[in-house]
């Protein structure tokens, strides 16, 4: 296989990072909703943690993007 082709395949494979990010973000919002419906009184106080968890989770998916970019442009 040509090295150039392997680069593109590798960059595409790096997009699998989105799988984990998607599961994680779904988990965070799903669990928040479940908790908020059981105890609506405590929901507002946890929205900061919700957004923090969302941002941390979303970033892991973007690490995959960085790997893909490194493969495409830096190798």
């Amino acid at each position, binding site marked *: 296989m040509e090295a150039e082709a392997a680069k593109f395949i590798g960059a595409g494979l790096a997009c699998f990072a989105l799988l984990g990010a998607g599961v994680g973000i779904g988990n965070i919002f799903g669990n928040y909703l479940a908790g908020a419906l059981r105890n609506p009184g405590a929901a507002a106080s946890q929205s900061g943690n919700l*957004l*923090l968890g*969302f*941002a*941390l989770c*979303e*970033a892991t998916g*973007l*690490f995959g*993007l*960085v790997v893909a*970019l490194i493969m495409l442009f830096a190798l």
Partner: protein
Amino acid sequence: MRFEMLASGIDPMHQFKIETLVPLHVGTLDLSFTNSSLWMAIAVIGASLFLTLAMGGRRMVPSRMQSLAELSYEFIAGMVRSTIGTEGMQYFPFVFTLFIFVLFCNVLGMIPGSFTVTSHIIVTFALAMMVFIGVLLIGFARHGIGFLGLFVPAGVPVFLLPLIVVIEIISFLSRPISLSVRLFANMLAGHTMLKVFGGFVVMLFGAGGALSVVGIAPLLAITAVTALEFLIAFLQAYVFAVLTCIYLNDAIHLHGDHH
């Protein structure tokens, strides 16, 4: 897709290009004033002007601008108190400066045609290294050699220790990388996505006929994505500040037990 866009003059990566405005070379060092320096300067001047002018009146009943400044102060002060405790307030100026700088750089980057300083890894890495070295210095100054106890979590079985200590050290050393890559990748990905979607809409409208009617849907979508990007711009500044606080808390109270 990308090559088609290149042909039509829409390159999603062009917005990240560093351009020299005032060339300045000292020996082999390139100290030129670039568009990145320009927007950094605008962020610093904008933030200083905003906070100084907003607090200039010092009214009992705050004006809108003063409320904004007080709100951002209280927001970060509350975060520092809840993550580090009251003794963390001596590091509040540092955390607040970091937050405001990153926030202004992110939000100024949302102006069409401007430059996003935080979309370059070297800028965010410098900020993250500042935090990392600061944490090391504070940790060793406060606890001496005992700071190394950070790598030995309490309540771990002795036979697991060799493994856990290595993992803890690796995770500690990767902090500046994850902290900087998180901010940089978010800004890079967000702005690239906006440009790609925007180029897609322009191409659809340019195609004319039925395609330009279809183009209305992605136009609405990109409007929503732009709103999301404003949220991300704020959120990433917040996350940067929160993680700085968590790392500082490690340096001040080993194992984070300040309660």
